């Protein structure tokens, strides 16, 4: 029988890596997930506990994939606590993917929003000049710096870290760094994933300069397939129309950067 991508495939967590005190990467084997496009996500079932959307983290080993999860509420903490040898259910991949330009590229990631950025890095051409900006609150929340440098080792590239408290890299909000960068460079493509405010500012800055920019959004998800409506933002459904949206489109969406819906579907301010 052909695999039904909407059916949770049971995978066993083979390895767990602590990235920061609150972020872990869980590695498992799955061919389909190994090959997803940057921006695509999976719905991850923690049997008996919950299910949540997760960007699919790259793995260097062929046939493997990973999730990088920050412990937060019930579901993400449940996934965070999964031990080696335990089963998780994985369905998908869902969603569209980044539209990769060539030339001078700027990637802006924050927190677990770095996951799709890392996968995007595996798709850049050797001729691309890539700048990756990683925003974090403080030094011990920085991760994937080494991996990014490694993935970019054949490219002209810079990896810039900003921390709100200045404990590592540049001090200040990531958006200040972005502002400087877009003022000083003409980027062919800008890509961002992370906290919505960060994405909003990035899109706004890029858009105001007429640059091509895309962001990968997060919303509460139940189905992942465009039925339940829980992931809506304005008239868009993040799981089906996104997760990746063009800056143009986002700037005309009055909920972007301002509201998200809670589990009951009530609009809440960011």
């Amino acid at each position, binding site marked *: 029988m052909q695999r039904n991508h909407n059916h949770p495939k049971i995978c066993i967590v083979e390895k767990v890596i602590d990235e920061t005190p609150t972020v872990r990467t869980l590695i498992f084997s799955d061919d389909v997930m190994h090959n997803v496009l940057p921006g695509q996500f999976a719905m991850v079932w923690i049997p008996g506990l919950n299910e949540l959307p997760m960007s699919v983290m790259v793995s260097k080993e062929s046939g493997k994939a990973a999730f990088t999860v920050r412990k937060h509420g019930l579901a993400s903490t449940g996934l965070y606590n999964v031990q080696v040898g335990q089963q998780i259910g994985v369905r998908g991949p869902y969603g569209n993917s980044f539209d990769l330009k060539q030339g001078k590229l700027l990637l802006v990631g924050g927190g677990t929003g770095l996951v799709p950025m890392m996968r995007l890095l595996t798709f850049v051409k050797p001729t691309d000049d890539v700048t990756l900006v990683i925003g974090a609150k403080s030094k011990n929340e920085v991760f994937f710096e080494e991996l990014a440098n490694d993935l970019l080792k054949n490219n002209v590239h810079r990896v810039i870290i900003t921390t709100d408290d200045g404990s590592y890299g540049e001090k200040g909000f990531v958006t200040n760094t972005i502002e400087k960068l877009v003022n000083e460079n003409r980027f062919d493509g800008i890509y961002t994933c992370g906290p919505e405010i960060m994405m909003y500012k990035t899109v706004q800055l890029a858009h105001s300069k007429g640059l091509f920019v895309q962001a990968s959004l997060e919303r509460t998800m139940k189905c992942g397939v465009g*039925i339940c409506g829980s992931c809506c933002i304005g008239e868009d459904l993040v799981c089906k129309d996104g997760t990746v949206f063009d800056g143009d489109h986002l700037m005309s969406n009055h909920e972007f950067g301002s509201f998200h819906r809670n589990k009951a579907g009530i609009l809440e301010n960011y």
Partner: protein
Amino acid sequence: MNQLLYSKLPIFFKVNPSLITSVGKICLDRPVMLASGILGISLDVFNRLYRSGAGAVVTKSLSTEPWDGYPNPTIFSVDGGGWINAVGLSNPGAQNFAKMIESNVDVPIIVSLVGSIPEDFESMIMQFKNCKITAFELNLSCPHVAKVGLEVGDDPELVKKIISAVKTSTNIPIIAKVGLGTSNYLNTVNAAIDSGIDAITAINTVRAIAIDVETQRPILSNKFGGLSGTPIKPIALRCVYEISSKYDIPIIGCGGISTWEDAVEFILAGSSAVQLGSAIGSNWIHVFNDINHGILEYMKRKGYSKIDEMVGLAKKS
């Protein structure tokens, strides 16, 4: 409808007189609506679906208070087609929802309501007095939430009380949505008709379960959920046929519709309009236009100029 909206529409959308249909007092430009619970929490999305060809949109079932619903997993994809869902009627509550749709101008919105007692429904209906809505649909048939849905629908006396109360508190048409529960759903239909219901929607999802053999446990957090989509089509079609054979009441068919042939089958069985939900999971929202188109072609080929001419034809054979 305002000009702005018109300009965004596919050409096809412009009202085609052949597709106009009446469900009792409810008049619709097109016979295929969005079923309750599907993509149904935002007015922006309603506008989009209407522009995609839906004849009306039914909201998520609303309760007096906001509900979070069940934890995930809330949806399971059945191998071979269809879904089992136990979203648990998550919804922002009637009041929040009414506020959101107050600005509605264009979209024929049918507001779906759940509750346990007549007062629940009466109070919710009051919330919508400033909204432009087409009808209320009473969800008497959700198979996976306690004290509402089927637990109400399976009790014809309670159904009578609720509908009688509701009918005295509003002039907006009231639809009762029925489903297969633990009693004869035809008794519920009967009670609804006796109490002055304007139309019947049939059917809701059918109680079901999915078990994962590797982890050896039910997949949905609520264990039980409701089966929707292609698997229930033959059952839903039978219910429409049974209701229309027994009663003279406008019917909205629902359950597993994903092609124009499906829609026509429901019309021939006796429904004046149809709803769909699950098909969006496979065919996305193009499904509305595809079905509208297919019905039109069929009508042309067979020589019909109104949906109404086809309603219930299969019973005459």
